[in-house]
């Protein structure tokens, strides 16, 4: 059985340990070499007191494993939180790979008894901060927005620009004007998108023009 960690050039680490003992301030991470050498050596010359090394090495070297390891996958996995389907505003709208819309504000919840996901942002094809952004609202009838090949895509009314989701209440999604990077716009206007009618409207309820592009364009 191989003792881990493997030190391909053990003489280097022995030399380094000697150097460390001479220059106490050097940071050399050969704890493992010292442990391995001490455990396996049969000659006095190569043995270095691991306790001495531990005293010299700074405590900040935290990622060098002090125990031996057998080859193969880790015997136990470090537990990490089991993914759960979080409802409400999402921590991130990050997407792996290219997506033609840049969404920085995402929400997931139920509507008419079904899980839906909503993203707000802008069309990436217009990327000059000095130009008016094309704001979009994307609605998927699934809990995972980016998996949906055919979500409903609504461009916000002309001139309104990039948008963030402020809140979702009942059938109404409140959207606020946002800057180029999705940053909140001071004194920016807000509008409503009604999930029941699939229509933009002013906060006072006046319907606004609503267009629906057919599909997500291919990346070219």
């Amino acid at each position, binding site marked *: 059985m191989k003792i881990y960690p493997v030190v*391909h050039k053990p003489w280097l680490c022995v030399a380094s340990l000697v150097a460390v003992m001479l220059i106490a301030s050097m940071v050399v991470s050969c704890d493992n070499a010292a442990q391995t050498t001490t455990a396996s050596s049969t000659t006095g010359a190569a043995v270095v007191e691991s306790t001495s090394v531990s005293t010299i090495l700074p405590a900040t070297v935290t*990622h060098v494993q002090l125990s031996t390891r057998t080859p193969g996958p880790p015997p136990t996995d470090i537990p*990490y939180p089991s993914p759960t389907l979080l409802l409400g505003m999402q921590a991130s709208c990050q997407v792996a790979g290219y997506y033609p819309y840049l969404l920085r504000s995402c929400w997931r919840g139920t509507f008419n008894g079904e899980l839906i996901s909503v993203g707000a942002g802008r069309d990436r094809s217009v*990327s000059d901060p000095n130009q008016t952004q094309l704001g979009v609202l994307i609605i998927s009838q699934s809990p995972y927005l*980016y998996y949906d090949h055919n979500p409903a895509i609504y461009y916000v009314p002309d001139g309104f620009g990039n948008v963030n989701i402020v809140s979702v209440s009942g059938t109404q999604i409140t959207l606020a004007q946002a800057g180029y990077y999705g940053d*909140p716009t001071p004194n920016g206007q807000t509008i409503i998108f009604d999930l029941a009618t699939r229509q933009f409207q002013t906060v006072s309820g006046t319907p606004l023009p609503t267009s629906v592009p057919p599909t997500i364009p291919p990346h070219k």
Partner: protein
Amino acid sequence: MGDYQDNSEAYDTLAENIAAPTAPLSSTSYFVTNTSLNTHYNDGYCAANNPSSSIVVLDYGQPVTATQQPIGNPYGTVLFDAHTTSTTTYAISNAVESFIYGYNDAYDRVPNPNVTCTINPGSATIAIGTSNLIQGGVGAVSPAHARAWANMVNDVRAFATPYSEVTVAAGFDAEPDYSNYSSAQAWVKTFTLSSTATLYNYGTVGAFPCTTASEHLPHGLSCAGWTVDQVYQLSSGITGTKALPEIYADTYPMDWYQVDRWGVQTYSKQMSFAGDMTGCPYASCDPQYNPTDGWQTLWLELNSDSATSQNPPWSTTIVCMTSDCSVHLTTYS
């Protein structure tokens, strides 16, 4: 600063007379979806499939202030799992170390019954990546996050010292759409001052970067939020940075050539291209590039002009680490 010139006509003519060499064997990089040691171990094991050298980017997603944080470790990322799980630099370092263990076991020809891949190990550079993506104006694209990232990378580098076949580096998906330039620049500068590890920019130009808002645009593209000089700085200009650009489709190589040309004309210094990153691992990816097309097209663009001529050593393709990924499945899948 030199005057920007559109050389597209000249290099288009030259490009007709040269042929790209065979592309390097493409490695697999990952949009990371979890910090499982087993998953990382097995992926690290299977990464040892190139007998020469390769680069693997482990992209841990957008930087955040971690919500669950060990003491003294308040920074992390949002992973690419569909649930957008947050993780810490501590968990990331453990996961990368497990990846390195896997690579090293393959290097030592230790059997792994849990995978079916064929190993053929050489050396590998493993770049631990994050991005400049901010969310709603709030994000951790900050010097403090960059310092935490550098500390983590430095720790993993120390860990990897015995494994001579592995080089630990950092990655940064710098995109003009993701944040303002000053935030991204501050992150990159802080990182490079805090670590001697190379920082590979595997980002994009966005749309074509302009020196001014009214500049002539050669490919019918609009101006990006950053200037061409700013893209250059984050990709080679700042000491310690190199370019490993996304070459997803046909406009990308042309734009990166223009950035390189800008560096030559302005600073008499070429960009340093470590390779390219494509986004589709299959043989047919139309309209996106497969790994061979991506590397060769970038090579042709760069080598059509003697001022920017170079031979990027690596090619990598980025895929999701697991099926639970916030990926937008495009037409090739």
